[in-house]
């Protein structure tokens, strides 16, 4: 009975962690700009990795393996966000800026329900 509980909990944690890792990698490929990519990769990598490691810990029980997994998790918890921060800092001080969209007025974008009247449409 408790083996089923352990297996179920570690299944859930491993699947959740894998989904986060996959989403993060997908974001790394698909996002349009460096800073958005970094957001995707940095955040999901940390939490996804920790969830996967938690799932493995539940599977291992109270042994030395769990202590080692805990150490790896703590290490990744500290260094993964730090590396992301260092990369962002380096990119920013090197002059790379996030790309902001071009229109910054308060008018809503061109939509089908808007009545042009005699105005020329926007180029």
């Amino acid at each position, binding site marked *: 009975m408790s083996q089923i509980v352990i297996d179920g909990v570690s299944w859930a944690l491993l699947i959740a962690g894998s989904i986060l890792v996959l989403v993060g990698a997908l974001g790394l490929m698909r996002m349009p700009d460096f800073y958005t990519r970094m957001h995707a990769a940095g955040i999901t990598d940390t939490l996804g990795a920790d969830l996967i490691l938690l799932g493995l810990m539940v599977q291992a029980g109270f042994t030395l393996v769990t202590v080692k997994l805990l*150490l790896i998790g703590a290490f990744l918890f500290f260094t993964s966000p*730090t590396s992301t921060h260092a990369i962002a800092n380096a990119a920013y001080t090197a002059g790379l800026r996030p790309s902001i969209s071009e229109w910054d007025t308060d008018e809503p974008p061109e939509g089908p329900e808007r009545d042009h009247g005699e105005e020329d449409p926007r180029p």
Partner: protein
Amino acid sequence: MTIANFIDMAFLVFLGITAFAILKLRALFAVVMLSSVFSLVSAGLLVHLDAVDVAFTEAAVGAGISTVLMLATLALTARREKAPTRTHAVPLIVVFLTGLALVYGTLDMPRFGDPQAPVHTHVAPKYINDTEKEIGMPNIVTAVLASYRGFDTLGEVTVIFTAGIGVLLLLAASIREPDGLRIQTMDHHLVLRVVTKVLIGPILLFALYVQFHGDYGPGGGFQAGVIFAAAFIIYALVFGLENARAAVPGQAVRVLVACGVLLYGGVGVVSFLFGENYLNYSVLGSTQVSGQHLGIILVEFGVGLTVAAVMVSTFYAFAGQNPPIGDEDW
């Protein structure tokens, strides 16, 4: 073809592609990153071949320290490799013929993994059967490395020592001694400084763990020395080379390089004094097994000391040089 063979071939093909890319690329930074990838894939291949201790060392040295040292060197040379000015047809032919001769030589060897090969019928069973009663150590690799083949490991430590001395001799003229005029480079990176400060202690503890756990699991002197050096290198990277030199002076590190080899050789001499052969650890304790344990611990510690000191002093030498090319021309 089984899945294991497929994984082996995939690893080897990837190694070949990476090596070819290293040869053809001119941008030196990409070459340095690719060599780090090469070492990582080699470590993966070694893990798949069940050689965990070697994979450990390969990952630590190849993917870690080697990349850092090559980056330190890249700052001193140009960014792109110059194109070759003449063709190298004759050396290519010579190398190709030598390679063919070597391949022809391997045709006489037994097939990879053949259970009837002499190494599997004589050598391996002897070590596997005898280690438990003669040395009493679960990790047979460390037992073979430090006790059965102790002379080879003494030679390896001496090679590391000689290589370290050679590098220091070659670079001695261009090392700047600390003179208080340098600024710290990462003053405003608060997050990095705090996190590094928190992590250096656990890294050093991990190095000690790997050093002394080598008797029971993957580990040993070589890997532990590299991890020790990695802690000091990351301190030097984040807090400045001058602060690192104030904490661990270059002179002290150079003395430690010699102390490791001295410890290893000294254990052998102590065996002499007890009337046995050189590096026969059995006489160091009251029983054979305890003597072997003590001998292996001391010897591995000597190895770790030399490796750590050589890595740290080599990093000091590489990172402390004046770049001969100005910033504009780089």
